[in-house]
């Protein structure tokens, strides 16, 4: 009966290697596989029996010659400068035909049989998918998204940020000059900085903070900002999400202007007619007016009232034209 001494160093290493969550292979310089652990079997779908003692696995993992040649060429280039490579990313094809992204790290070592290469391959497919998903969300969001390193240097500048501001990623990422471009007026910039500093000093974020930016084409846009601090203590980032509310602001201002104008052009004129009628009543009472004059004065008030009715109709039309969301029943009422 054979017993295995678990205290033996070689056994411990073998156990670690076998049970590691990353694929670990040991190979000769020729590419012949000496070790192929459980994770390597799980990730690639190829068993130890199919792999160990052979060099054919690489053709299986990289079945497309063109891609295989590229990988080989990249490895050769790395190895001209040093005897190992770090965080080298390739896409392998598994036995089932699926693609997995592997992050490779290697180390050259010497065994009694000669030089060997120990390779650790981490399956980062899920990580990359999450990255791609996150990038896609950021990229396709219809709000301006930017991530700033401490000091204000821009690390992320999405497509909406490019469209809203007119400044491309290439102009913005790695720099913090964008804020000077967006807020060219030094006084306004100082005021904003003061306000932001005030908000940040009491809480580490701000919500619905409105600023007026100047785009690359010189246009003025109103942005509503929301921010959050992200990252660890050693590396802090701030993510800022800016919603372009220029049109909403214009609509609000237009609505306010309409309402004010309407109030002014109804309340005031109705008051004028009331006061005129009151005056006319007094004048009639004091017998200061002839019948013709009474008729003329009353006729003027009728015309005034008719004009007010026309004005209200025009306002209703204007509201209908400006707002397509009005329910049909209200639309008909306003049209009437």
């Amino acid at each position, binding site marked *: 009966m054979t017993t295995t001494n678990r205290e033996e160093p070689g056994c411990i290493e073998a156990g670690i290697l076998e049970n590691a969550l990353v694929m670990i292979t040991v190979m000769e310089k020729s590419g012949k596989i000496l070790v192929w652990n459980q994770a390597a079997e799980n990730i690639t779908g190829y068993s130890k029996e199919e792999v160990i003692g052979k060099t054919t696995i690489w053709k299986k993992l990289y079945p497309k010659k063109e891609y295989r040649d590229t990988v080989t060429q990249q490895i050769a280039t790395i190895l001209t400068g040093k005897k190992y490579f770090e965080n080298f990313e390739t896409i392998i094809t598994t036995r089932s035909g699926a693609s997995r992204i592997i992050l490779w790290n290697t180390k050259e070592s010497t065994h009694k049989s000669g030089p060997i290469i120990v390779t650790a391959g981490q399956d980062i497919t899920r990580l990359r998918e999450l990255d791609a998903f996150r990038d896609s969300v950021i990229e396709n969001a219809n709000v301006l998204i930017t991530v700033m390193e401490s000091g204000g240097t821009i690390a992320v500048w999405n497509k909406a940020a490019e469209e809203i501001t007119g400044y491309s990623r290439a102009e913005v990422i790695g720099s913090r000059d964008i804020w000077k471009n967006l807020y060219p007026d030094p006084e306004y910039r100082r005021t904003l900085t003061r306000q932001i500093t005030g908000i940040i000093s009491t809480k580490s974020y701000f919500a619905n903070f409105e600023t007026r930016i100047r785009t690359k084409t010189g246009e003025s846009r109103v942005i509503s900002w929301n921010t959050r601090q992200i990252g660890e203590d050693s590396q802090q980032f701030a993510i800022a999400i800016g919603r372009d509310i220029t049109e909403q602001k214009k609509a609000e201002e237009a609505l306010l202007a309409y309402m004010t*104008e309407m109030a*002014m052009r109804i309340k005031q004129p109705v008051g*004028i007619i009331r006061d*005129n009628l009151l005056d006319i009543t007094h004048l009639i009472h004091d017998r200061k007016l002839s019948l013709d004059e009474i008729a*003329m004065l009353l006729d003027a008030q009728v015309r005034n009232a008719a004009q007010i009715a026309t*004005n209200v109709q025009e306002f209703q039309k204007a509201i209908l034209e400006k707002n397509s969301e009005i329910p049909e029943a209200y639309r008909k009422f306003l049209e009437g």
Partner: protein
Amino acid sequence: MPLIVNPDELARKRIFLILATPGNIRQRNIDLIKEVSDLGYHTVVITTNFPYSILTKLYGEQGVNLSKVSFIDAVTRNSIGSAKEIPGIVRFINNPANLTDLGIAVTEILKERSEEKVCILFDSISTLLIYLSSPNISKFIHFVTNKLRLMDISGIFLATEKGLDPMLMNQLTTFVDTVIDTG
């Protein structure tokens, strides 16, 4: 009774915006005409509310010297269709919204009286709101105030207090020299 407008400012051809409550505005009109007439000015009343014929009656009763007053009437023709102009006393405009005709009438009457001490009294901006949008009123008042300054003539614009929105009020304030709220 204290004067509404300062005679020195009037002599310096200043332009005034006089605010009054709706109940007081008609009396302010009469008080101003008496005041300005007593200072030796000929007043050109631009009326958009009460017709010339009624105003002359009211002025006469209150002791206004009617030989010192002439009118641009934007009410009568709008009500009764036609009215014959009386040279030197009254000109008629078909409709208060017809700013072109109103502008022409102001220009012509000021030319006719270019040798006299003249003051324009516009009664009132508030009534114009029935016929015109505030941007159009603002443009028209700007035109008239410019004309007055070019011709070195003083002017008084009447309006009811609290009846004008902040933007229009703001604009009117920039066109005139002095705003007086008479209550």
